[in-house]
Structures are given as structure tokens and as C-alpha cells.
């Protein structure tokens, strides 16, 4: 336990001093502001592209549009940035050989994995929920009195999806000496999730739903209980990923 806290602290210092946390956090804050702003401006932008003769009555933007931006931006930009920032978590240490000293000083190998996971998840948590709070405040400000359904559940789902990607990235980064290896591994995992969408039967279990059904939850088209199976798969993947990372790292020559 002592070494777990010590090494997690080291990880957080590393993210701080290498500007990784700064970049991640500011980008998520910026997204938080941009979501409601883009939603508010979207009709105006579309209008300016329309030829003048055509009269189209665009519905005024609603709070649902603001949240649609949140889910779109966090999955497309936010998660992408987070994955790139975390991609070197193990491989950078392999490349430089910095773990040798820690392990010979008696740091248990599994602690390394657990600390890496904890630190990156902590950063993700902080960035994600800060982004959420900002979008939430401005959505309430721009669309007073409007409410959406299942906001907490829906955002929690995407949050868990993010943790799952981090845990998959952890395996990739533990496997490969090069940080691109981890990125490719995670990219491959996401590609498989997209392929699974093709089969309707399997798609009922696809954790990808936690990241692309969010708006349907908010609008009431889908009830959270219908995503039970993807949620279960997601949590299983997280746990299995951590366990397999530990097992892989135990065998790894550093």
C-alpha cells in the first residue's frame, strides 16, 4: 500500500511536470465551453451556408443540442487527446529503462500497473467531470428551465467507456516497447467494437453503445436499463485488462 501511494504520486508528478495534465485539462475545459456555444451558434452557421432563396425553418437550438455537442466532442476530440497523452504510460518507461531502478528497489511489479492505471484514470476523471460541469452550467444558463432525462446516467456511461479505453491502452502499452504499439492496440480494439456493430445480436452487448447512445438516453428514446449488458461487458473488460496487464508485466524483461 505504501509503495502504491508513493508510485501513484510519482505518476501524478510526472503528468504535471511534463505538461501532460495541463494540456489534457485545458483541452477538456475548452471543450466544456465550446459545447453550448457551438450548439447555440449551429443554426446561424447553417443559415449562412444556405442559399437565400430557400426558406428553411430551423428549429431553435435546445439544451439537447448542447449535450449532443458534449457527447460528440468528448468522444471524438477528448478521448482521442486522452488516449494519445496516456499512450506512453508503460512504453516510455521501457524505452528509457527507468523502471529497472524502481523494481530493484523493491517496488512490486503489480504496483507499477495499478499506479499507472490509478493516475491516468484520476486525470481522466478530473478532466471529464470538469468539462461536464462547465457544459452543465452554461447549458442551464442558455436554456433556462429546460431539462433532459437521465443526464447523470448517460454521462456516467461515457465516463466508464473512457476508463475502459484507458485499461485497454494499459495492456497495449505494457505489451509494446514503443508507444505507437499501445496506440495501435487501442485503435484495433475500437475498430473491433465498430465491426461488432454490424451484427445485431452481438451489438446488444457492445460497450460502444455506452459512448453513442447517450443522446437517446437524454431524449427518452432509450431507457438506461436497456444498456445493462454493454455496461456489464465494459466493467468486465476493465477488470480483465488490469489483470492481464499485471500478468504480462510479470513476465516482461525490463
Amino acid at each position, binding site marked *: 500500500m*505504501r*509503495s502504491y501511494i*508513493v*508510485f501513484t504520486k*510519482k505518476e501524478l*508528478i*510526472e503528468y504535471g*511536470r*511534463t505538461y501532460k495534465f495541463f494540456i489534457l485539462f485545458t483541452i477538456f475545459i475548452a471543450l466544456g465551453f465550446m459545447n453550448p456555444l457551438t450548439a447555440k451558434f449551429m443554426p446561424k452557421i447553417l443559415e449562412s451556408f444556405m442559399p437565400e432563396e430557400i426558406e428553411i425553418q430551423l428549429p431553435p437550438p435546445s439544451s439537447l443540442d448542447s449535450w449532443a455537442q458534449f457527447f460528440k466532442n468528448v468522444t471524438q476530440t477528448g478521448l482521442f487527446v486522452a488516449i494519445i497523452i496516456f499512450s506512453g504510460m508503460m512504453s516510455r518507461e521501457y524505452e*528509457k*529503462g*527507468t523502471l*529497472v*531502478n*524502481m*523494481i*530493484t*528497489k*523493491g*517496488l512490486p*511489479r503489480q504496483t507499477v500497473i495499478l499506479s499507472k492505471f490509478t493516475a491516468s484514470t484520476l486525470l481522466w476523471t478530473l478532466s471529464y467531470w470538469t468539462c461536464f460541469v462547465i457544459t452543465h452550467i452554461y447549458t442551464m444558463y442558455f436554456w433556462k428551465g429546460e431539462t433532459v432525462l437521465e443526464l447523470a446516467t448517460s454521462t456516467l456511461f461515457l465516463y466508464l467507456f473512457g476508463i475502459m479505453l484507458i485499461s485497454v491502452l494499459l495492456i497495449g502499452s505494457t505489451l509494446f516497447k514503443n508507444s505507437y504499439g499501445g496506440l495501435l492496440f487501442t485503435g484495433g480494439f475500437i475498430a473491433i467494437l465498430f465491426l461488432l456493430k454490424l451484427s445485431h445480436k452481438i451489438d446488444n452487448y457492445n460497450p460502444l453503445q455506452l459512448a453513442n447512445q447517450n443522446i437517446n438516453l437524454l431524449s427518452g428514446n432509450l431507457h438506461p436499463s436497456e444498456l445493462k449488458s454493454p455496461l456489464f461487458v465494459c466493467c468486465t473488460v476493465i477488470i480483465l485488462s488490469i489483470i492481464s496487464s499485471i500478468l504480462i508485466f*510479470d513476465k516482461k*524483461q*525490463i
Partner: protein
Amino acid sequence: MNILTIENLSKSFGDNLVIDQMSFSVPKGSIFGFIGKNGSGKTTTMKMILGLLKPSRGTIEVCGERVKYGQTDTNRFIGYLPDVPEFYNYMTAYEYLKLCGEITGLSKKTIKDRSIELLGLVGLDHNNKRIGTFSRGMKQRLGIAQALLHEPKLLICDEPTSALDPIGRKEILDILATVRGKTTVIFSTHILSDVERICDHIGILHHGKIILSGTMQEIKKYYHQDSCLIEFSNSHDRDRFLQATTIENLESRETTDDVSVILKSQALKRMMQEIMSEMIRLDIVPVKLEILDPTLENLFLEVVK
């Protein structure tokens, strides 16, 4: 008492046998020079002592406890300085020592006292710069400090001087000499002058085996043999000289390059007389005629032949 005992240790990577039935021991309090050419298996051996590599066969004992791969409890006795120590560049030397101390489980006060003491010893006190800005030599010195932090019984240094300039090398050797008596040191190298400067025990590793080990004096005495180096002005002179019968009858003749030869004999005086009279007879004037001391280098070249 032996701090480290290695018995019948073997390690192969695939078909490549790197360590072959190696056995040796390191007595307490010694500075042990672990000598071998590049690629002779020095680093492999050290990594097995640290439990970072799994031996194919054989046993390693540190302070009477067996080393187990993966679960390396024995590392609490050991301080390790890798050949190219890498630290977290964004930390200061003091922060790094603090991290090491916390991982080892030392108390806050011990960490502080030891860090200050060791940073002073290695000349990095009052240095608040980040490790990323350090020179090779400074990193090597920080490496010694972190290795000595938990007052290990055994300090293992992998080629600590190889990548350094003469001043950096001297600094490292001086630091190692100051821990003599307190800590047993194993020190791998291919730079023999460094070994001669500080080691009292040596082991020569060749083709995965220890082919010679013991105290420095013993070995030098045992292998004492007089030899003489002659350098000629051209190879023609040398060949003519080597064909002379008295020279052909000498115990050992070894040509090092086109114009030189090393001759060996147990009776130095007689050999020198023969050489000189042969030269007068053949009318050859050498560029250089030198009696060689039994240096470690000569000894090393001889045993790894």
C-alpha cells in the same frame, strides 16, 4: 564470509549459451573486479543476481539467501548501479533519492539524512536542477548515491566508468574507494587500469565461465612471468630475428603487430642476453626493447587467449 555465492550458473538465450556453469564467490568487504570483454556476459550475470533475469540453471545466494526471479527479497541487501543509469528527468536529484527511499520503505528522517550525506559524498549537494540537465558523469554519481541509499551490504556497479571521460572516471573510482570496508562492491569493467586502481579481488569472465579468480596479489604472483617487448623498424628485420635458432627456442613468442613481438621466459636475464647477442650478430637495431611488468592487461590477454 561470502556476501555472494554463485554455483553452476548457466543462462542461455535460445541456442546461445551466454553463461556456462559459472561458479564464484565474493568475500565480504572486498572490492571485486568483474572483468570481461564486451558481450562476455557480465551484465547478464548481474541481472541474474538482481533477479531481473531467470537463470537457466544453477543457484545464486546473496547474504546466505537464495535469489528468486521475480520475487526479489534479496534485493534489500543490494544496491545496483546500471551501466547507463536512467532517472526521471523531471525530478531533482534530491526528489529522486526521496522516491527511492520511500519505495524501499525507509523512514522520512533516514531518507533526509542519508540523501544529504550521499549527495555530499557524490558532489551533487546544493544542486536543485532537474536530472534532465545532468551530464553523464553527474548521472553516474547520482546512480551511486541511489544505490547506496539503503546502506546495502552489496553494491553492484555495471561498467560504471566505461562511458566517462578521465576526470569523471577518477571521481567515480574515488567514491567507490571511500565505501571500501563498509560495503562490498562488485564492479564490472573492461577497463583494466580501473581494476588495478581499486579492486582487491578479481574474477575474469570469458566465454561464460570464470577462468581466473582470487585476490589481486595472489593472481599477480602466480602468473608472474617475465616478458619483453621488442619493436623493430620494419617487418623484414623482425622476421629475420624470429628465424634465429636461439629465439625460436624461447618458451613463447607472440607477434602483436607487423613490427613488434613479445617474448617470454622464466629466466629473464638469460633471455635478454640472447636477444641482444642475436641482434648484434644479425646487425639489427631495434626501435624499442622493453621489459614488461606483469600488468593485469598482459595477464588478461594471456588467460583469454
